[in-house]
């Protein structure tokens, strides 16, 4: 039996979402067309926009459907940067915390290389928290808040599950009239997400992390915020995102968000019990295992357990568990399948040789106790093998 504990990478499509998605795919017509087919498509699209807006606490006009989290984040960060700099050329700094998703960090690095932006980093604490006073200090550093184009922060860290104090961060930014973009991709379905209450200027979302399909996401852009678009063309969606709109994707996303939000409390509690069973079981069975990030509680999503195993490489562990039919992650993005040492753990101050041995277990609503028990049964032997293999950087004895 294959066991899937990598829900932070992607979630199984919910059966009811698949059904609604397939049905909506049959819709004929471009929602921008004037005729009846177009109007019916438009109706399905706008109903979905309203439903999603209701779920995430924003106005329908603030929902910009995109192809997913990466596009949303790129649009927000580049677009807000360009708009701020166009209004005031002095605003050329971008302030982001350590440990952000690559979609954020690499976008900011691109702005540094291509647009002469300055990147200012807010150091994480040892549990991956973004502290509001550190954000304030970063915004006020250097040439001061007047030189900052925008700031961006992840709501829930996708690797270690830290829940960030978004409202407090937004307050710090708002006090300095600096737009805050929030990457809520790993937050939706795991914590209550309310855009209006968060105080953020923009927020990125993705459907496939909550039981929806890949290739549909949203940028929530506050009605008082404007940005320079990445994509130019037909002027759809406030001209923020030109391009024919994905009606079926929007239908599926809205439904997935409704389902995930309706059962949020239940899922959070259930996943929390399973996560505690996993973490407790690992601690009892494997010496030298350390859970990274905040202790279970209000500062950590219940679906995440990021555990380092001393003396081995995460990719060896991943391999050994995969051979036992268990899918987990080493946490971070890969290039050509090469796991990198987690930059999140490094930014939290975890020593590199410890960070190498990280595994990220992420649970979903469909995870069962039997799944957890199977992992606990397979893990000791996997760790033993991975420890025998050691770090790939060690000198082989076989010369």
């Amino acid at each position, binding site marked *: 039996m294959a066991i899937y504990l990598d829900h932070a990478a992607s979630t199984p499509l919910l059966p009811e979402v698949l059904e609604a998605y397939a049905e909506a795919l049959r819709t004929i017509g471009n929602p921008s067309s004037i005729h009846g087919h177009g109007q019916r498509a438009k109706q399905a699209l706008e109903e979905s926009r309203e439903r999603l807006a209701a779920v995430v606490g924003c106005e329908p006009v603030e929902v910009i459907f995109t192809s997913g989290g990466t596009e949303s984040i790129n649009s927000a960060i580049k677009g807000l940067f360009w708009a701020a700099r166009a209004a005031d050329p002095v605003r050329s700094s971008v302030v982001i915390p350590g440990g952000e998703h690559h979609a954020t960090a690499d976008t900011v690095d691109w702005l540094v290389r291509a647009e002469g932006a300055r990147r200012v980093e807010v150091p994480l604490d040892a549990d991956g928290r973004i502290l509001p006073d550190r954000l304030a200090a970063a915004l006020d550093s250097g040439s001061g808040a007047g030189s900052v184009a925008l700031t961006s922060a992840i709501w829930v860290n996708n690797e270690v599950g830290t829940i960030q104090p978004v409202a407090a961060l937004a307050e710090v930014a708002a006090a300095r009239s600096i737009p805050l973009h929030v990457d809520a991709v790993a937050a939706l379905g795991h914590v209550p997400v309310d855009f209006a209450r968060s105080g953020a200027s923009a927020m990125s979302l993705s459907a496939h992390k909550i039981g929806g399909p890949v290739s549909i996401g949203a940028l929530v852009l506050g009605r008082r915020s404007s940005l320079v678009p990445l994509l130019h063309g037909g002027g759809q969606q406030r001209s923020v995102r030109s391009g024919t709109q994905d009606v079926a994707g929007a239908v599926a996303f809205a439904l997935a968000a409704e389902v995930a939000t309706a059962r949020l409390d239940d899922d959070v509690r259930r996943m929390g019990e399973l996560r505690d069973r996993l973490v407790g079981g690992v601690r009892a069975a494997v010496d030298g295992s350390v859970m990274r990030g905040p202790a279970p509680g209000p500062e950590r999503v219940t679906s995440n357990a990021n555990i380092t195993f001393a003396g081995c490489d995460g990719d060896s562990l991943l391999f050994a568990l995969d051979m036992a039919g268990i899918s987990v992650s080493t946490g971070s993005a*890969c290039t*050509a*399948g*090469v796991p990198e040492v987690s930059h999140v753990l490094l930014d939290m101050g975890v020593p590199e040789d410890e960070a190498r041995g990280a595994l990220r277990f992420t649970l979903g609503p469909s995870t069962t106790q039997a799944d957890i028990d199977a992992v606990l049964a397979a893990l000791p032997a996997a760790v033993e*093998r991975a420890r*025998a293999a*050691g770090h*790939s950087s060690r*000198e082989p004895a076989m010369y």
Partner: protein
Amino acid sequence: MSGGVDSAVAAARAVEAGHDVVGVHLALSRMPGTLRTGSRGCCTIEDSMDAQRAANVIGIPYYVWDFSERFKLDVVDDFIAEYSAGRTPNPCMRCNERIKFAALLEKALSLGFDAVCTGHYATILTDADGNRELHRSAAWAKDQSYVLGVLTTEQLAHAMFPLGATPSKAEVRAEAAARGLAVAAKPDSHDICFISDGDTRGWLSDHVEHAPGSIVDRDGAVVGSHDGAVGFTVGQRRGLALGVPDAGGRPRFVLEVRPRTNEVVVGPREALALARISGERFSWAGLPPADPTTPFRCEVQIRAHADPVPAEAFVHTEGGRSELVVVPDAPLIGVSPGQTAVVYVGTRVLGQCTIDRTVSAVPATVG
């Protein structure tokens, strides 16, 4: 699985032979190129994706294992150090010795595998007593037993070369096509994988400190100058820019590179002839001769694509240090310290040494 046709077919054959096979691609650089260019065929993301597609078609799991740190230390840095010391290394042999059949093999054994299977053209035979021997492949034109000559008995015990008995590369390509592998027509890789444009001297000048120095003859007389001794190879004639031949009107060749004095020694072609080569770093690929100190008949090969030549070899021990000595029947031309001399008996690879000492076949007064 490099992403090339040979390792893909080797994997498919291993599966068919009943083995439980997992495809592994080695990440040897932290900054792989995106697309394959020129003659390289192993080190880009495109190659990794080719390997993964091949694994999918064969129906085996596929992983990328990162050995970039070890590759840098054991192969790239070694390559630089060898050239800096005036020697001519073979990085592919070093990779087989230290990465594929050491770091990779150890990790694989620890994770529960029994062997590393590659697409090398070489054969492993087992004698009546169960001892494993390394032999040339059936495809002589493609034979890669030379670059595997560094393998020890222990490493051979965990090596598999399913292509060894195939008479030609064309057959391997045809088989790949028949199996639906998209890499069937992919060009062969050659040159050094970490030198992306194939310009070894240019690469070395970027990675090794170099300063102008003298080109001297065998009597020490200065006959020219160079921009840096590193990168000259024994036997090289071009690129010396001496302008004139020697007194006897003969062209001059590099005889020796002396990094310590930053000198390049040149002389006539006949001065390249070597009567004897030897190396303290030697190994046996399988059982050694019963008494290796007694000279035995063999053939010696000093480059991947050189012809083997008849020779006599023996182990010489003096003052607690042993070396493998090879005395060719006819003088060898153009051998540089750092190269590997692989000793064959018939088709069998008996062993090898990294050449660290040479004895000229011609007295110095000739030059």
